[in-house]
Every structure is written in C-alpha cells, then in structure tokens.
C-alpha cells in the first residue's frame, strides 16, 4: 500500500491553483516547513507571506486581503488556527462570510509525538459551529489536493483539515470531489459505516471484516462535514439497521454528532461513534496512538456488531 501526506496534497493543490488564478495568496505562521507551504513560497515568493508566530493576526490579515478581492489561504496547525485563532475565525472571517480559506495541518491524534497540546481533536466541532463555514476533511493525498482546489472556487470561508502523517492512498475516494457530497464507496443493507478524513482506510478494513462474518455493509466517506450530505445519510439510515461513524476527532461535535443529528431528525436509527472519547491524547507514534485510543477497524467492527446484535435483538 502506498502512503502519502495529506498536507502535501494541500500544497500541491495550492501550486496548481496558482498557475491559473493570480488571486491566490498563501499565508503561514512560522510553520511553513511543517505545513509544506514552503514549497509554495519557493514557487511563488511574491504571493507568500510568512506572518511569524501570529495566528490571530494572520487570520485577520487574511480577512483584509479577501475584502480587497484576493483569495488567501491561511495555513497553520489545526490547534493554532481554531483555538488560538477562534475569535478571528469567527468574527473576522465567518461572520462577514469572507472568502478566506484556512488550511489546517497536524490535525487529529496522528500528529503524534508533539502530544495533546498539538493534536487538534476538537477543531471540526469548533469550526462546524460557526455559521457560513464549510468544513472539508479529506481522506488521503489525492482527495486533499482535490479539496484544496475545490475550496478556491467556493465563494466563502472554508476550513481544510489535514494531518501530519503519511496515510494510505485510497483510490476508492479519488472520484469527482464535490463540496457537500458524500462518496458512497459501496452499497449494503445491514449496517452503514460512515468515515471522514483518514479513517476511511479503517472503515474499508472494518467493512471487509464484517463482510467475512456475513454482513452486508454500506460504506460512506464524507470529505465534507459541513454542509453535510443529508440525503445520503438518510438513505443509509433507511436501508440499514444503524450507523457507525469513525473520525480522528472527538466524538463531541464532529462527524458522529453531525450524522446523529441528521438521523434523529429524519429517520431515527442507532448511531455509534468511534473517535476520541472526550479525552486528550498523548505523545506517541501515530499507529500506536490509534491502537490505544480505539481508532481502528476492530473498534468499528465491535460497534457494528453491537448494532447488529444488541439494538435490534429480534430483527
């Protein structure tokens, strides 16, 4: 299996955009070597602005650039953008609905060694709650590149979520990228698994494991958390006994609660959420942390079995 960084998809998308769109500007806050935007700087030095360790200023500067007609991509780690810069994302960008893109890397538990202070496990929840923001959580390198390109042609604030690690390349998600559209990876009638971001590979593995046990699994991948694809989720709720969601993020306020909200309002069925269970992470290798915090295919399978056996014992 091939592994590639989603943040590399971000900068490759930016470089491609810049070829044809002279409104594209890139800002960073002294983490250009980590977000990978240093590659953009090398290619387009006049369109790159390193703001130093000033996430708050960078986000409001981006607002100012967009007011003057540019399309700025403000780049930093997810924790710094959404927690340190939460006010600026809300009041400078979301409220006036400005055309600012926030490229957040090093999101989620797999940020690894830097520990909990740097692992953004609540960023989706924060940004999702801001009106006007679109939230994109691509699953692999190619989808990250597609999402970056799609963000530029969407008029309004977009939050792009990328990780630090190299993640499996998943050809199944490489179809056309449309903001707001779920990717139905396979149809099935017993159980639905819905993933976002890099959890897509665990979702695919879990589906294989459940199929070996004789279950028919529907598999949805949601690279857009907001606006959420209500139709695809409701259809899945109608067709299957329940849904397991999987995200590299807190179960509070992320994909799981977004899906549960749709399901409970339109077609109530059990929804079990795999993700960070309201705890901070810690330092470690990405892979060992995913084991320790229950972000694995086997955790999805266990939740799936619960739905298939416990919630509807008579079915």
């Amino acid at each position, binding site marked *: 299996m091939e592994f590639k960084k989603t943040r590399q998809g971000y900068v490759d998308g930016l470089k491609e955009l810049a070829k044809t769109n002279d409104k594209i500007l890139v800002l960073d806050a002294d983490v250009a070597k980590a977000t990978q935007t240093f590659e953009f700087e090398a290619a387009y030095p006049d369109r790159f*602005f390193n703001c130093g360790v*000033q996430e708050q200023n960078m986000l409001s500067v981006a607002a*100012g*650039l967009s*007011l*003057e007609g540019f399309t700025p991509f403000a780049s930093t780690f997810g924790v710094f953008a959404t927690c340190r810069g939460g006010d600026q994302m809300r009041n*400078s960008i979301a409220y006036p609905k400005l055309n600012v893109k926030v490229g957040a890397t090093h999101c989620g538990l797999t940020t690894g060694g830097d520990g909990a202070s740097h692992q953004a496990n609540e960023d989706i929840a924060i940004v999702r709650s801001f009106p006007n923001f679109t939230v994109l959580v691509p699953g692999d390198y190619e989808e990250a590149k597609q999402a970056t390109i799609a963000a530029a042609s969407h008029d309004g604030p977009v939050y792009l979520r990328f990780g630090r690690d190299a993640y499996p390349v998943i050809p199944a998600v490489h179809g056309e990228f449309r903001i707001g559209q779920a990717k139905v990876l396979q149809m099935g009638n017993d159980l639905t698994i819905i993933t976002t971001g890099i959890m897509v590979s665990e979702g695919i593995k879990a589906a294989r494991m459940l199929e070996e046990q004789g279950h028919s699994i529907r598999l949805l991948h949601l690279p857009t958390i907001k606006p959420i694809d209500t139709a695809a989720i409701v259809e899945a709720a109608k067709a299957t006994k329940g849904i397991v969601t999987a995200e590299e993020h807190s179960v509070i306020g992320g994909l799981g609660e977004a899906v549960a909200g749709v399901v409970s309002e339109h077609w109530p069925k059990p929804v079990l959420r795999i993700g960070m269970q309201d705890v901070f992470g810690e330092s470690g290798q990405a892979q060992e942390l995913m084991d320790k915090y229950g972000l694995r295919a086997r955790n999805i399978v266990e939740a799936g079995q619960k739905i298939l056996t416990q919630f509807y014992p008579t079915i």
Partner: protein
Amino acid sequence: MLTTETKRFLVDKVKTVRHQILTMVHGAQSGHIGGSLGAAEITVALYYHLMKHDPKRPDWGERDRFILSKGHCTPLIYSVLADAGYFPEEDLTTFRRPGSHLQGHPFQPKTPGIEASTGTLGLGLSTACGMALAAKLRGEAQYYYVLCGDGEIQEGQIWEAAMFANKYKLNNLIAFVDRNYLQTDGYSEDIMPLDPLAPKWESFGWEVHKIDGNDLEHIILTVQAAQQSEKPVMIIAKTLKGKGVPFMENAAEWHGKPPSTAEYETAIQTLY
C-alpha cells in the same frame, strides 16, 4: 492652515455628529456614547476633509478606507456615514433593532461605507494590514485609516499587527489610538498601564505623532504629514471621552450607558 470657512464647516459637522450620537443611543437605549463623542473630530476630519471617498459609490476602488477597530463606537461612524450620504439618515433610528443594517458593532456586508467587520477588540488593525498589503500588491496608492481605542491596544493581537505592518512597510496605513485614558472598568493606567505609549510604537518601527485629538486643525495637519511617511503611522490622539457634553466628559460610566430622556435633553442643550 485651514480657512475660517473650512473650520466653521467642520466644527458644525462635529456638532451634527455629536447630536446624532446622542439621539441614536438615547433612541436605542443601548450603545457606546463616551468614546463616540470623544472621537468625533478625528472621524469628521477624515470623512469631510482628508479622505478620498464617494458616498454614492461605496465600492469605488480608489477610495481611501476607514476601519473602526474600536468597533463599539458605531454611533459615531453611523452618524458620519449617514450625514455624508452613504445611507438615509432615518436609518439611524433603527440602530440596534432587529432587521436593521445598523448592528451594534460594524458589519461590513450590510452597511454601505463600513469597510470591515469588527467588534471583538484587536481585529481591525490586522484586517487593515491585510487590506493595505493588498493595495501594495496591486500598486495602488490609497490610504487605510484605522481608529483604535486605547483600552483596545491592551490586546496582544494589536502588537502582532504592529510587527506585521513594519515588516511589510505599510506606509499606506495611518492609525489613530483614541487616547482618552478611560476604558470600561476605569482609568487605563490603573486597569493596565499603557504609558509610555509613543516609545512602544516607535520601537515597533512606526512613525509616531502625538496630538490633541479634539483639535481639528491639529488632526488634519498631522495626517497630511503622515501621508508622506515611509513607515506605518500611529497618531496618539489625546481626546476627552464624552467630549461636548460636560457631565459625560472624562467619566468612565458613560462608556456604554444610554442616557435617560432628561439626561438626553440636557446633553443636547449643552452641545450648542
């Protein structure tokens, strides 16, 4: 030097604006009166003498921009924009009411003439930096004026913007700090001391001027000098919070309190 005629015109405008500020805040029974009154001369000098702008074409690309970073002083900017002709004066009676385009704090998408949404303190100077940088990228020559509160510059983000403006040589940025020494909870030097203020900005690479911010001529001559600067400019404008209404002057309690009808009537009389 200003001609007597110009001076009289501007002084009258300041009175009109102060009258409107009092009427708006009294009408809404909500809003920030003291800081609005105190910065009336600065705003009038900009909109009626210094800035290149056209109320009939709020989106005109070559206009100078004004960003109210101390966003709570909407009674001031709305009064000026209405008087200048950006929107009908009767809109002012809708201030802070449901459905109004005149929100408690500036909301750029809705209000003609408002250049940036501000409200939580510290945002406006950074936003103005982004706008001024955009003008530099396009090779355009307009000015970006910013009004900050003195309490506001206790925000860390202000000093981030101060570094940024210096790095990118934003000499098209001319900012004011409305130095009235009062903030919500009291005297600024008790709450969080700011003095000595000029050396702070100078050490961040800005050209600094200290002026009487209630003196129209002093404001105008200083801005004209600032327009020639090679650096971003900070004008430390000593003002009297509540200026023009003696019982509101230099009183922290009038930061965000609406006047009763009796107080309003007295206030109007003292203006003229």
